[in-house]
């Protein structure tokens, strides 16, 4: 699953609802919902990868994820995004993901609860650090506030994976509503 799907959040969500018989439709739908954000991420990277060849794009975007997308967005703040940077990062990410999730599948039984080591929170802390890297003042603040509240409410009322989509849309809507009409 890690090798073909390579999407952390979606894979966790799928494992949550995995059962016998396998709810194929629910799993695929949940994967689609969790990964809908990729549409926005690939759209935002599209103009920044305009110089890539089609093959470079199709390969590089195969492993597009929150992390390498966020690092790419940070990179373009400083200098143009090269295919070498993007594809190398993608390759490292993919290799690591497949290697460590395979190891985890075998070693998981011996480790016990990952919560004991705080390993589950590393993901959250990483995201907080990434958001800080994107900070550009008032518009980011409105996105963060609206997304956090909407996502938490959606999570409590509708449950995963709806919170990702609803929170994201609320944040975008909030920025659109509060941004000034001109300039910038």
């Amino acid at each position, binding site marked *: 699953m890690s090798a*073909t*799907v390579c999407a952390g*959040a*979606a894979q966790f969500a*799928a494992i949550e609802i*995995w059962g016998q018989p*396998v709810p*194929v439709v629910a*799993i*695929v739908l949940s*994967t689609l919902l969790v*990964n809908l*954000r*990729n*549409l926005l*991420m*690939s*759209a*935002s990277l*599209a*103009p920044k*990868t305009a110089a890539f060849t089609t093959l470079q794009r*199709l390969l590089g*975007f195969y492993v*597009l994820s929150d992390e390498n997308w966020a690092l790419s*967005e940070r990179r373009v703040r400083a200098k143009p995004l090269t295919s070498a940077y993007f594809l190398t990062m993608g390759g490292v990410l993919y290799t690591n993901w497949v290697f460590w999730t395979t190891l985890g599948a075998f070693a998981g039984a011996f480790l016990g609860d990952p919560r004991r*080591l*705080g390993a589950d*929170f*590393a*993901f*959250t*802390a*990483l*995201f*907080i*650090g990434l*958001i800080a*890297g*994107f900070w550009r003042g008032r*518009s980011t603040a409105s*996105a*963060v506030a*609206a*997304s*956090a*509240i909407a*996502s*938490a409410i959606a*999570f409590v009322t509708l449950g995963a994976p709806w*919170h*990702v989509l609803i*929170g*994201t849309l609320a*944040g*975008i*809507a909030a*920025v659109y509503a509060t941004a000034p*009409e001109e*300039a910038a």
Partner: protein
Amino acid sequence: MTLSIPTILAIIGMAIVTYATRIGGLFFADKLQFKGKAKAKAAFDEIPAAVLVSVIAPVVLTTGPAETIAALITILAARRLPLIAIVIVGVIAVVVLRLFMS
């Protein structure tokens, strides 16, 4: 998880929809034009933050006081420390806080 036909179908389905979302943006982004649309441009620019916040909000706000306080400490750390240090601070904070709070 045993390897059966439905398992394989589910994984193939997951792979297909995931790849579709990953490359989908490449096609409709070409049609986006932001000239003279400052509000739309601002909203588009904040997609990264909105996505990341939405993914972690349940952990930060609905799990318990240990996670919420650890997140606040991580936010403080994020104001000045590099990325790796932020993650280390967050993980240590959550482990310590869970000792006292659960």
